[in-house]
């Protein structure tokens, strides 16, 4: 499908330690807890936030490299904004001429399509100024019909499935 490698030697960042989500740190209880799950049965609401969206997309594999989007810093938590029923995801390709950008965007779109309640509308954009053909890619990624058409292509779908074979550290086994 592709014979050209757009970025043969990307910078791989070590995955930061799971430092806990921002909101948790602030709402920390007075007591040091051994088992963080003990407050599980409490019935407070935990709305979907940017960390959660980030958790969903950071484990996606790059189509070109055996690394995740998190390790390549293609996606990051601050680049995600969450509204009541609207989510905006921005991502940064590793090089401005990266021909994989559309595919990466498509993977993000499919992952969120499968993992978010239907009430959300998701917009996916390249980081402004990070890509040569930014407009074209953005347009393609946010056009419902084009996304649907792309997923009809079995070869493309197969590549997308490969990139999505890991959900938040949980390796999926498609038997």
């Amino acid at each position, binding site marked *: 499908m592709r014979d050209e490698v757009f970025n043969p030697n990307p910078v791989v960042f070590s995955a930061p330690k799971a430092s806990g989500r921002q909101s948790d740190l602030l709402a920390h209880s*007075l007591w*040091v807890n051994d088992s963080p799950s003990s407050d599980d049965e409490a019935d407070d609401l935990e709305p979907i936030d940017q960390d959660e969206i980030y958790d969903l997309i950071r484990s996606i594999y790059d189509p070109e490299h055996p690394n995740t989007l998190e390790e390549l810093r293609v996606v990051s938590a601050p680049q995600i904004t969450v509204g009541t029923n609207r989510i905006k995801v921005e991502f940064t390709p590793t090089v401005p001429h990266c021909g994989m950008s559309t595919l990466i965007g498509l993977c993000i779109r499919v992952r969120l399509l499968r993992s978010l309640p239907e009430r959300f509308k998701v917009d996916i954009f390249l980081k402004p100024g990070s890509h040569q053909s930014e407009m074209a890619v953005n347009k393609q990624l946010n056009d419902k019909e084009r996304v649907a058409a792309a997923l009809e292509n079995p070869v493309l779908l197969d590549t997308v*499935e490969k990139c*999505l074979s890991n959900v938040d550290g*949980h390796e999926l086994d498609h038997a």
Partner: protein
Amino acid sequence: METTEKLVQTWMASGREEEIEEIVSDIEHDRTSLTDVVKALGEYLTAEDSNVLQKGVELLSLIVAKCPTGKLNKQSVRVLTAFFCGKLDDMVTVKPALHGIATLVSLPTISPAEVTLIIEGIFQHVKMRALVQDIRFKVFSIIDTLMAYHRDVLKSYGRRFLDGYIPLAEGEKDPRNLMVAFAIARVLIIEFDISEHVESMFNILFCYFPITFRPPPNDRYGISSLDLKLALRNCLNATPAFGPLAIPVFLEKLSATSRATKRDTLQTLVTCLPVYGSALARVWARKLWNALKLEIFQPVDPETEEEALKATQALVKTIYADEEEAMESNEDMHGLARDACEECIQILKEPEKSQAKPATKVLCTFLSTTPSVAKYAISQAIPHLNQLFRNPDEASARTATLFLLTEMIKATRDSAAKATETNSALSPYKDDLLAVLTVGLKSQSTRNIALSGLNALCSATGLLSDEEYGYVVHNASELLERSREELDESSDLLIELLKTISDIAPRHVVEQTLPILFSSLPDSAPARTDGPGREKCWQILSAVAKLCTQAELFENLVIRLTTKLDLLCFPSSEQVAAIAADPEPSAAYAHMILKALYQALASKAIMKHVDIAKYLDRLVPSLFNVFVSSAFLSEERPMVASEPRLIEVAGQIINLVVQSVPLQKQQLYAASLSQALLEGDVRSIAYGFQKVATTRSLSIFNEANTPAQRNILHLLASAVIALHKEARLSLTNVDAFLDMLIGWTLTVADNDLQKLSALHIVSSIVNRQVDELLSFLNNKLELFQAAEICNQSLSLDRRRWAIKAWTWLTKALLVRKHALAMSFTEPLYERFNDEAIAWDAAKAIGEIPAADKVLTKANHADVKILYVQRYVGVVLPRLIAFSKDGENPTKQTASLVALTSLIKSIPKAAYAHEIPSLIPLLLRGLELPDSEIRSNIIDTLLVAAEGESPEKSLVAEHSTTLVNTMLKNSKVQDMPSSRVRISALRYLAILPSIVKYEVLHPYKATLLRELAVVLDDPKRSVRKEAVIARSVLFP
């Protein structure tokens, strides 16, 4: 004679085992002789008819095989040998003849003359190619046996033996025969003069290299590919004479594409090179290195790379081992090591390139070759990398450079550790290294690598001086003062470095690091609203807990933290009012401090440090002092340390310390504990800053006393449960004491902490002294359950606690496999009909074999192995029978509850054999309304699913039920407990991997639709599982 003749005739017709047995037993009892047998066989042995002839020889060989050794004297052996050898030339009789010879060669009576005869016979007449495998195997076995017992005779043959043997072994293909042939070949090569046969030996051995044999499935001979490889390798490395012929073969095989071949060749090279010798290695060095380099710099997989590195190491070792003495300076280093080092250094000029890592690996392997090569490699690499690091033009490559340096340091340290010498090779460069690494510490991007480099440097034995350790500690401690955000990722590595140093030079850490850490801990608790402040406290505390395990450091930690604890619990007069108004933040802070102490102690306990015991006189009394004083003072005002959560952690600390105290000291301590328990005199266990603890007396069991004082029982219990069997409390009447404790639990105690503490004491005393308590136990068995558990006029809560008390008594008996344990479970089954407490009784059945923290080996309890299996063996079949019995619904339900609770608390292996009959019951149990039971069941189903596959699934027939029930349990509207929802979703996520796709296909659409709803669950952890469960359904 006549009988023998008859028997022979019968056998010739029948071929039965019985006749042989009879003949042999006749020979044994001197009723007949071998000569008679031969006479009786006479006509058959000379028969014209080949069938008859073959049978005749066969009978003789079978009799010889079974004949007792004593009956085969020299004379008969000679005759038989001559006879059998004479039959070797005939294709008809060769098989039985070889069989007979095989028996004869293992006899002690065989003489060199016969051996010669046999060898000549085999060499002359046996045509290996015409024979089937098992006959060829006989030939090899005969030679193998002769090689073992008559090697000198074979040797006297000289080259004629080899001339004869080589054609025999040529072309053999069967792995069973090859194993013997390789063993023979090794002896031949080592002990015989093969100088004229090197080439032919080489040919008959190297034709098998590399072994590609793969045993057929269920191979009953059990010869693995590895067996053959090792056997062959032992031949290939048996003589240096193979060297010149072998190396080209190895080089050729190395360029093959198969990974298995590459790896085999590399491993063989490692064993062969030292044998083939340095002269040859030097000749081929260049070519070998070029081939190896390819495997290292463009490895096909990590294993091959590893093997290639080992081969390189072997090559270098072989070349330079002999010249070790001649090497005086680096100038003397010539040849491969020099070239290879230079090549690597050339690559290292660009440390950020991907080739730099393998180049470093090569240099690192050189470090464990010969000292002079190691010295040379270090002298080339380290200064080069140091210089690179300092070069401002290369600043961008600093991380990579430091990484490579760290690898080098680690390799030097490890190679020195193997050779048990000092790290002298690094010492000329240690100043430079220290300088470079400390510079690395300053910048964020290189900090992590620099820390692990320093760690490697510090752990190299005998390299750094005390002052230098001080310097490292100084630099590391400076880092601690930086902001937390900046340090975030490095703090673990930093603590690790300090920990390494604290084992070697604790003084520096105590003097330089600890003051910084402790001074950043506030004396009073962060305010209720100060979340980040609390977070910071906890981070510092967990850092010191991790760091301070070395004896000197731990002592410091104990002093600092107990002082802090005292300040918190007994604030100065101006703060008293403020803290008494809201003691919770202070209590939470004190809780953190106690937790940190516990964590440090727990990691010391895992490492079995001996200095823990001495804290019985230091830490334990001051903890008692704090809590007892607080209990007294709490009558006047709210106290920080009367919080039960603090008491719990303090109990854990006391427990750990008492556990590690030796028996004799425990006995003394037990006396003090008894005084405190029975008379309320705490003077000998609770001394410390607060005088009030020692001036008043504690009366835990007095009904009129305060709950705060009663809570102290938990601390005492934590000590009591860790006592040895021989260190007893001084009780005049144990029965009465236990009865009092149980009665107190049921009538006086106010909370779970107190009740459980009392029951723990009861349980551990029963466990250790059961033999003296039989009347107490029998009394309980008769009266207690009637009076307390079955007594419907008592409150439900009291009856429940009576069951708890019962559980703990049974536990004490069960862990030591006491016969009474099983009788103690009986009354619980009877309660299954009692609707009020059926479920409690049922859950107790499951709790009895569950592991706990009281009756453990660490606590010196009497614990026998496999007690769980014994319990399950009796209880599980009964419960299954009860649950299937539909006549009594209350009992049936209770049995289901008991079943789930039991399965939850035992290892899978204990119930694995019952899984097929358990699954329908578990599915029924999912209908029970209790959410804890449901989540237990789903967890059990998850455990049961491990090792299942779609082809062999136990749950396939239940898939409709499973899908529907799990979906129902995963929705927040139907199931309020998030734990159950998570378990249900996890089960849905594994279902596709344990059930065939065809079975699940009809549910796919439903699952996708319903799970889409769960994606909007209010709980984050539930949504996460839903995402996974839904993702696995996509193609």
